[in-house]
């Protein structure tokens, strides 16, 4: 039994962490939080140059040809430092859709440029408030042109291309590749609880749209890609939860009250212990997800929902309590606590919110993967 990353993968983690400790400090994150830029272009370029964006993309398409385990390692590190870059949209979702369903031509056209960071992709499916289901998809494609409105679209303000769910001529749901620079595409930036990640509304008025994958198969493809992306996202959340715990622990050791470090008070000590518990459960569930991701196990849908529910819960729990442990200082703009709090709540709803994944998990378990919970 080996439910752990390999030594090489751990070396990769150390290397990525060193890189990010220079290129993705609090100052870099705050530059995006407070500045006009949608994401940190220098950081994104740096990740591309190290071959990290293309980690799981085959070499023939300009990637590094590593496995998704390496991508899990990278995701955790990006989550730890709240990297303000569109990796999840461009890689976990867009590149994965192409790998999963794209034609050779489409792969050749886009994967190398996604891996190099030259092109940023995103995934546009939600059309407003509430859960996204096949029934909520109103965007339509006729004669190769798409019309409709998608929002919110994470990183939609910065993306060059988008994979979009829409009704095809037969009324089924298909995936389409849309060049966001084309005529008929309008985008509006949306304010959000986490300005370190871009959010936009994309409006299509018969903009050119190219079919991606089999017609009518769109929802099925999207669901499979979202399950895989959920595992990678869970690693980002795990990284954030761990970092929030470390921040709170460090502060509890250093901050004195009543002549003692506040970490010597059980009220604080036990908050931290509970943060450790939720982060530890999340890590173990994420490793289960990582195993399913690379082994192509039949229980991948259950593993994805498990990792996602566990990590969402842990990151929200740890980010919230990190502020509580910091007290008044934790509620200042100057301290980083709120950056983690914002990100934890933003990630909690992207790719579908916690209650949706809770439903997915139990639906899938009752559909026959029950044994995996034993």
């Amino acid at each position: 039994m080996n439910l752990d990353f390999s030594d090489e993968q751990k070396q990769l983690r150390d290397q990525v962490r060193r890189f990010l400790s220079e290129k993705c400090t609090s100052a870099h994150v705050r530059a995006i939080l407070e500045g006009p830029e949608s994401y940190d272009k220098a950081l994104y370029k740096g990740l591309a140059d190290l071959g990290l964006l293309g980690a799981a993309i085959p070499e023939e398409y300009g990637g590094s040809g590593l496995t998704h385990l390496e991508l899990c390692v990278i995701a955790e590190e990006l989550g730890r430092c709240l990297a303000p870059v569109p990796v999840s949209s461009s890689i976990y979702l867009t590149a994965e859709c192409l790998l999963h369903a794209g034609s050779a031509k489409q792969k050749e056209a886009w994967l190398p440029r996604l891996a190099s960071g030259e092109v940023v992709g995103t995934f546009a499916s939600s059309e407003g408030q509430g859960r996204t289901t096949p029934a909520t998809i109103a965007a339509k494609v006729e004669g190769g042109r798409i019309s409709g409105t998608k929002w919110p679209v994470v990183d939609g303000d910065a993306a060059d291309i988008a994979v979009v769910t829409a009704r095809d001529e037969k009324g089924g749901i298909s995936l389409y590749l849309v060049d966001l620079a084309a005529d008929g595409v309008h985008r509006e930036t949306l304010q959000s609880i986490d300005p370190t990640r871009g959010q936009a509304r994309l409006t299509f008025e018969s903009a050119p749209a190219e079919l991606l994958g089999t017609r009518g198969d769109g929802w099925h493809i999207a669901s499979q890609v979202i399950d895989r992306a959920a595992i990678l996202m869970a690693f980002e959340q795990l990284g954030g939860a761990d970092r929030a715990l470390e921040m709170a622990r460090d502060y509890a050791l250093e901050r004195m009250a009543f002549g003692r470090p506040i970490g010597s008070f059980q009220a604080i000590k036990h908050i931290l212990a509970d943060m450790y518990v939720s982060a530890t459960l999340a890590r173990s569930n994420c490793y289960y997800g990582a195993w399913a991701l690379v082994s192509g196990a039949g229980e991948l849908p259950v593993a994805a929902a498990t990792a996602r529910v566990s990590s969402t819960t842990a990151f929200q729990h740890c980010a919230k309590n990190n502020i509580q442990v910091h007290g008044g200082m934790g509620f200042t703009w100057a301290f980083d606590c709120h950056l983690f709090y914002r990100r934890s709540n933003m990630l909690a709803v992207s790719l579908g919110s916690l209650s949706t994944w809770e439903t997915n998990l139990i639906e899938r378990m009752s559909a026959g993967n029950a044994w995996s919970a034993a």
Partner: protein
Amino acid sequence: MDFEDTAEEAAFRAQVRAWIDANAPKHLEEELKRASFGSNGVVSEDPIATGKAWQKKKAEAGWACLHWPKEYGGAARTPIERVIWGQEEGPYAALTGVFTIGHGMCGPTVMAWAADAHKRRLLPPLASGEHVWCQLFSEPASGSDLAGLRTRAVKADDGSGDWIINGQKIWTSGAQYSDWGLLITRTNPDVPKHKGLTMFFLDMKSPGVEVRPIKQANGQSSFNEVYFTDVRIPDNQRLGEVGQGWEVSLTTLMNERLSIGSGMSTGFPDLFRYCMDAEIDGKPAVEDSGVRSKLAQLAVKQSGLKYTGMRAISALSKGETPGPENSIGKLVAGAAMQDLSIFALDLQGEAGAIWNEDSPQQGRFQAMLMRSPATRIEGGSDEILRNIIGERVLGLPGDIRVDKDVAFKDIPTSGRGKKSSAEAPRT
């Protein structure tokens, strides 16, 4: 059991209602009702000027500081009358929020500790809204541990008897509008921390006083830092004896806990309304069993706080002192609001991350999400409140105190809270 006024209460309520109906700035009612967290909601005019005007009007009609004696500009009303006034003033009460600390905490402290001459000079203009007061207690390195404060007051060496103040206070609301401040300082670091403190009131326009707004995690700036550099205070602005500052501060803090209302809001009514409107898979969210269970648990917290408040009002109505029940209010409301705002965002799906005017209820739940962490900390953190309930209400022993009998200067400290990531804090 009933929710009715006594005859006297009903008469008083009618009188209040009539006056407010005739005098309140009706044109502001709408924006006042839309008020979100941390502002009184007035945007169409200067909120401070509007607040001072409303307070002046109340004072002229004898409706200012109902709980104060008349000689200081109050109305000498009973606690229950004060509650009824608050119920009737409704949204307009927010107009005079800038006076809350002055009327509720600073005034009573001055009343209890200042010389008559000072009381006659300071209190009437506070009651009438001419002067704004702020409270200068918390410091970056002493929040829950207030008595650990470090702002120094030293006798001037010019024989004037004046005191020279150096140091920093934090979380001071209204400092930028304040004429006067209630300031607690350390005058003797060589004795145990509670024994070396002295209280003053000072003119906020004094040279050496610098007010800087604090930017909060939610982007608002409802609080300030106040820096003191060689600020001079005459000795006759001292409240209580030298070294008696802790005792004086207890008067202030005791008054902080007296406020009684119809229960702090958890935000439940907003969530409930939202769940009536929102849909899950084409059905009203309120019909979803998961939503129902969540709503029910929040509903009983909301109503529990509401009727806890009414039990306290019932006691006042009988001329009794309310029990300790109200101490649960902030503890329950803060956590419930954070919990329900996260739940509301969940129901909004991916759009839950969006925070603008088009968001459900103009982004009220996103605002709650970002404001609620402060509720769980300000004016006594959840942990401090549990200590207070455990010790003062249930009679459990206090925590072990390692700093009790140690000279302040020998107590280990961490310097002002350092930040927890690579970069230095901007505060």
